[in-house]
């Protein structure tokens, strides 16, 4: 991976050059860094034409009291949330960013938790007894350069006289604890202001005090519906750094587990989306089929939702003797059920009426917002990491990356069911060919220490590109871990597609993007 290091003054010019001259139009992630003597950020960029190419742009500032960097949110739309996150964790303020509120923590939180000198004494930040006041949520500070002068100002998130409705944090159809503040004009949505952080668990900070095998358990709980894939990403990242040769058998089994998880996740996503449109039956059907996968997981790994199966170097234990038989039984069952699901819901004229023609996300917008995964592919953006940089056993199988040009809610709905079919195809090709020799795990040292350096690995989870960035200083614990959440950018996509639709469709639009809130908040 190419790395470009620039000073903070050159940052914006270099970013502009990469964006417009070399067409790096997809900002994968911004990783905030505390180097000890300086604070900085790493920008991972990729061009949508050549998605396998990734460049890391690094910058830093030595001013720890008032750290400031130039914002790149005029070049990539997704930068606006990433920069807010960097500000929240490291206190780096971004000049020319229109919204410099904290993103996860409350505005009255003292200190910046991911800095190395952060004082985690619970007496400084006790458990609050009162909710954050709406006035505080709405006050938006920003720093801009106007006519060569630096202006610090605050403005309101909503204009005076806007009719604002709160959805969440406790809302039955919000799929978690997301808080959406929606301004309405009659029934039509004008603007959405998402408030995150109601399930911010500080996983990235905790990782810094845990050893690498311990971190794996936290990744399962990020996006619990694709826990296996998240765990796979960290394993791959560590294996790449350690240069461990993982046995083929482990690669095959990991791939089958990943695809089974994807099916389970899509079934739940499909069921919940249908439930949001009023079909409880579809939800119960989806959960019923999902239980079959849970059974397969349980037999081999002992866990249902969190199989905790992949480890650095291979697998925790070998598969159960029944594994192949059960998987082979599951494939025809699922094919039959998929037909039923289509019959039950896809053809329903009421459901079609609600899904067709609304929530258009164009390909350019999806790339600019970084809406990866099925939601991006429904807009015709080729971004499947399984095809782009095949890992594990994906290079050995034939499958199709489902792309749809439409970008509408219906495309995002149908693409998940189509992906289930592709996942079945992958499993079908692998399940009979699991190599018997080589063992299920490579030998690793008892204490795993990664060599010094930055490591980055992406995998395709059920919601999009999940990325892991690890900075190691050669210790048994990492210096910095950052997870690229595919869901954070999906909420950005919701913010873009929801205006001008009816408020009654908001929940369904959110369900079609299928985000998982703990993955956003981490």
């Amino acid at each position, binding site marked *: 991976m190419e790395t470009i290091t620039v000073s903070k003054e050159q940052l914006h010019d270099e970013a502009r050059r990469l964006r417009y001259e070399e067409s790096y139009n997809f900002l994968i992630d911004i990783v905030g860094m505390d180097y000890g003597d300086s604070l900085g950020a790493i920008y991972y960029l990729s061009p949508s034409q050549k998605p396998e190419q990734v460049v890391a742009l690094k910058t830093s500032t030595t001013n720890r009291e008032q750290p400031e960097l130039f914002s790149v949110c005029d070049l990539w739309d997704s930068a606006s949330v990433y920069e807010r996150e960097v500000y929240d964790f490291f206190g780096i303020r971004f000049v020319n960013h229109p919204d410099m509120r904290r993103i*996860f*923590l*409350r505005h009255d939180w003292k200190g910046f*938790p991911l800095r190395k000198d*952060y004082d*985690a004494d619970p007496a400084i*930040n006790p*458990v*609050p*007894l*009162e*909710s*954050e006041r709406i006035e505080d949520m709405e006050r938006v500070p920003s720093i801009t350069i106007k006519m060569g002068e630096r202006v610090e100002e605050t403005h309101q998130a909503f204009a005076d006289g806007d009719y604002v409705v709160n959805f969440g*944090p*406790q809302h*039955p159809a919000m799929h*978690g*604890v997301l808080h959406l503040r929606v301004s309405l004009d009659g029934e039509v949505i004008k603007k959405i202001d998402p408030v995150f*952080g*109601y*399930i*911010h*668990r*500080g*996983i990235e*900070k*905790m990782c810094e*005090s845990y050893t690498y095998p311990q971190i794996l*358990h*936290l990744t399962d*709980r990020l996006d*619990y*519906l694709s826990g296996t894939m998240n765990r796979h990403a960290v394993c791959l990242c560590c294996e790449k750094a350690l240069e461990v040769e993982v046995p083929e058998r482990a690669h095959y089994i990991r791939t089958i587990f990943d695809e089974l998880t994807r099916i389970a996740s899509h079934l*739940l996503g499909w069921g919940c989306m249908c439930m949001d449109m009023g079909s409880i039956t579809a*939800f*119960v*059907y989806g*959960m*019923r089929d*999902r*239980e079959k996968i*849970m059974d397969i997981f349980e037999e081999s790994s002992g866990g*249902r*939702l*969190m199989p905790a199966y992949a480890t650095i170097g291979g697998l925790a234990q070998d598969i159960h003797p029944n594994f192949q038989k059960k998987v082979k039984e599951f494939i025809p069952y699922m094919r039959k059920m998929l037909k039923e699901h289509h019959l039950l819901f896809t053809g329903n004229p009421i459901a079609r009426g609600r899904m067709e023609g609304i929530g258009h996300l164009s390909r350019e917008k999806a790339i600019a917002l970084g809406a990866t995964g099925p939601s991006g592919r429904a807009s015709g953006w080729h971004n499947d990491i399984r095809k782009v940089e095949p890992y594990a056993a994906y290079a050995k199988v034939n499958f199709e990356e489902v792309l749809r040009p439409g970008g509408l809610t219906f495309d995002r709905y149908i693409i998940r069911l189509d992906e289930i079919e592709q996942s079945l195809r992958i499993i079908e090709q692998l399940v009979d060919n699991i190599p018997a020799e080589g063992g299920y795990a490579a030998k690793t040292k008892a204490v795993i220490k990664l060599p010094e350096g930055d490591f980055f690995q992406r995998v395709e989870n059920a919601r999009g590109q999940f990325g892991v960035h690890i900075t190691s200083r050669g210790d048994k614990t990492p210096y910095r871990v950052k997870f690229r959440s595919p869901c954070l950018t999906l909420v950005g996509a919701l913010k873009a597609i929801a205006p001008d639709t009816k408020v009654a469709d908001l929940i369904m639009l959110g369900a079609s993007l299928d985000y998982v*809130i*703990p993955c956003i908040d981490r």
Partner: protein
Amino acid sequence: MEVKNIRIPNMQYEDFKDNEYLEGYVRELRKNGVNIFVGKISDFINWGRSNSVWPLTFATSCCGIEFMCVGAARTDFARFGWEVTRNSPRQADVIFVCGTIVHKMAPVLKRLYDQMAEPRYVMAIGSCAICGGPFKKSYHVVQGVDKIIPVDVFIPGCPPRPDAVLYGMMQLARKIKVQNFFKLPDEAKGKAEAPLTTNPINR
């Protein structure tokens, strides 16, 4: 049923002043062909209450998925009369705290609990809700919901299996059955005044 079988947890048989009169009355009625059944209205109410507990739809993270599984096809909790999940805390009897509660969420959970009508129950599902679980070391996680609201049943697991959740539900049903319905308002008052933390891990 004999009058003797009356079982009141906080009132012994000997404590009834007029057993003889009651027993005689029942005997006489039965002799004349009246099918009479003697019991306590409190038991009757609790039988009904324990078999129609309405949970609030509330989940913050992973355990919420297992909670959905409990409600879905295989371990269907409708068999126990719990299936009416309510979206408003004002209509709910029990709140399942499924998942981690963080600093920002704590006041929201407290408010949800306060909005529920008495008698109300709390179930802490999963290690996070019990003591912070895998996130105990985090700067932003509440170390157990019993620091904020009183908890009736703790269900350990990360996440607990649906069967475990079902078992926990039955424990709550048992608890409801032995409560004295008419003394609940006093109990609620005592609960509000008593110090929180009943969790041995957090003590």
